[in-house]
């Protein structure tokens, strides 16, 4: 089946290049979105180093490490899917496993939030929390905001991969012609992964 070329394009390769470039620019924009949070983290670290270290020591870094492993493994599966898609033989099962790993991340994150809430260090609205110092409170606020925003991005990524898996199952994703769709979803997934790779040391290992 020949690749359909949409309106403003005159050739499939031109269309593919444009779609990939669009995704890269979007990811640059996403990076700048998170950069604001990293700047706040840097500020807290520079201004209140002892508080940040103390707050970071309370984090469940083992869960964080497990989550890092889950995301990295899922990225490997997504990368394999992209490579397979380019050769025209992507399997929905591989994508489904990546999705399960992403869901596993969210589940572990929920367990972790619950533990932190029980320990009284998660600044959920409504709950009165006593923090040893104001800056530790600010650090946990930032932690909650940053990890929530990351979880939202991860959920969008799961949605993207799920759509692709369904399209593969139904055979409505012509491969290898439209492998660009898989590549772009993969790029997004990897970015969400990379953001976590930076969030993890900033919040868990800053001791």
């Amino acid at each position, binding site marked *: *089946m*020949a*690749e*359909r*070329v949409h*309106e*403003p*394009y*005159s*050739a*499939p390769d*031109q269309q593919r*290049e*444009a779609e990939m*470039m*669009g995704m890269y*620019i*979007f990811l*640059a*924009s*996403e990076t*700048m*979105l*998170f*950069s*604001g*949070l990293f*700047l*706040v983290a840097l*500020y*807290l670290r520079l*201004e*209140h180093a002892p*508080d940040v270290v103390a707050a970071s020591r309370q984090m469940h870094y083992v869960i964080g490490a497990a989550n890092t492993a889950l995301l990295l493994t899922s990225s490997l599966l997504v990368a394999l899917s992209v490579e397979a898609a380019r050769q025209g033989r992507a399997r929905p099962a591989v994508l489904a496993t990546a999705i399960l790993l992403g869901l596993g991340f969210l589940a572990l994150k929920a367990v972790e939030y619950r533990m932190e809430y029980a320990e009284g260090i998660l*600044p959920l*609205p409504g709950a009165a929390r006593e923090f040893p*110092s*104001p*800056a530790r*409170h*600010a650090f946990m*606020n*930032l932690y*909650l*905001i940053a990890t929530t*925003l990351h979880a939202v991005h991860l959920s969008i990524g799961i949605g993207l991969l799920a759509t692709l898996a369904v399209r593969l199952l139904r055979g409505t994703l012509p491969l290898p012609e439209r492998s660009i769709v898989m590549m772009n979803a993969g790029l997004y997934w990897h970015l969400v992964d990379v953001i976590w790779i930076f969030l993890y040391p900033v919040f868990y290992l800053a001791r």
Partner: protein
Amino acid sequence: MTPEERPERENLADTGLSETPAERVSYLRAGHTLKSWLLTTDHKRIAILYLISITFFFFVGGVAAGLVRLDLLTPAGDLLSNEGYNRAFTLHGVIMVWFFLIPSIPNTFGNFLVPLMIGARDLAFPRLNLLSWYIFMLAGLFTLAVLILGGVDTGWTFYTPLSSMFAHGQVVLAATAVFIAGFSSILTGLNVIVTVHKLRCPGMTWGRLPLFVWSIYATSLILVLATPVLSITLALIAAERLFGLGVFDPALGGDPLLYQHLFWFYSHPAVYIMVLPALGVVSELVAAAARKPIFGYAFVAGSSMAIAILGFFVWGHHMFVSGQSMYASAVFSFLSIAVAIPSGIKVYNWTATLYKGHISLDPPFLFAMAFIGLFVVGGLTGLILAMLAVDVHVHDTYFVVAHFHYIMVGGAVSAFFGALHFWWPKMFGRNYSLVWGRLSALLIFLGFNLTFFPQFLLGYLGMPRRYHVYPPEFQVLHVLSSAGAGILGLAYLMPFAYLLYALRYGPPAGDNPWGVTGLEWQTRSPPPKHNFETVPVVDGPPYDYHVEMEGHGDG
């Protein structure tokens, strides 16, 4: 089975499209239903949708400005309450910045002209383009909700801790509106960048891009890289207000100055989002009016990129009196002054372009001249403000207000009207009355100066911004300014009348009413749905006008 490549790349006459005759005649005739407009993916129609929406917001923001100026007629605060005054200038700022100036030229003329100027059929992602208009309208609905529910009083800057802890207005709603509008900006910027990279027609090299395209490209880079920083900053304010998750709260060791750094990291580049497209428009208008190749094309194009890049490193000049490090201030001061270099290059090159040109005093050129004069005044006073010692004296006074209105209203809005008058015949295929056009250009220039020049004096004498009760000795200058605002308001209404009149009764414009170069003038007015009958091929430099040389007289 369709062929792999449709249209064939070798055969330029093959448009690869099955058009209806109506679509071939004009994009305006390709469907008359409301649905054909609201679900269109044609960049030209989306440009018209934006034009209508931002005109509406220009009107709302203008009414807020009118309230402010009326209240300032007398030294006592008698028209508006203190709270009401704060809400009026905040709405004026929020609406004019995010719902008029930022989308003004990029989303209307950028949308309409970039594909035409580079010989493309549409932007790279037509559906995304439509989506960004809907996102913009959703943000607009939030803004209207803010208006109806009582407004917001923080100033357009949303400074913490006022916005996060003390303000009573609809801060979260207003921040949400701006947050959503940001996505519209990002998607439009992304679309333009990819379009310029991937959809140039054969022969349209980077060195042949019209200067307007260069400036919109530079603007798009800022839109894509700066806007998300504003998004996250506003999200942090909302988190603090809604859920008590403070990161700027001084009681938690947070720093309100950190907010200002994040805010201005977006909002200073945003100034260049507003003015760079205007610079691009004026480059086009000047070359068209002089009928000469633009002087120093590479420098004018390069200066757009230089302004876009430098613009990211000057935000600290908004914070000279905030207590930031003296060394940081010195660096920011130096970099801010450096922006004068690319800006100056543009002004000198326009002047050199006009030198010995066959200048026609048509409305677009008068608007371009108004722009150059006002931009120079705004730019030079910007240099004064970039000086550390002087800024301490005039910081947060009317001097600053006058300075940025010279750039953003005198500059960007004049250029917007110039673009409207220049490309109106192309967009709608009708000519308007040139006499009325000249008259409104003149009145806008005079009304503008009467409004804002007294504010330089007021600021220098010490009138602080954002106060509506002031010492009686300032009244004369305030009355002059308010009178000017009245003239300006009427002058802004004039084009509505004669441009809309021309829409129905104007004589047909012809394909190239100004007799200028540029791909957009080679197709019909108004253009067909797919812009060009055959894929255009560019084989010469831009602004390739015939220049008569002295001593080689042809007559």
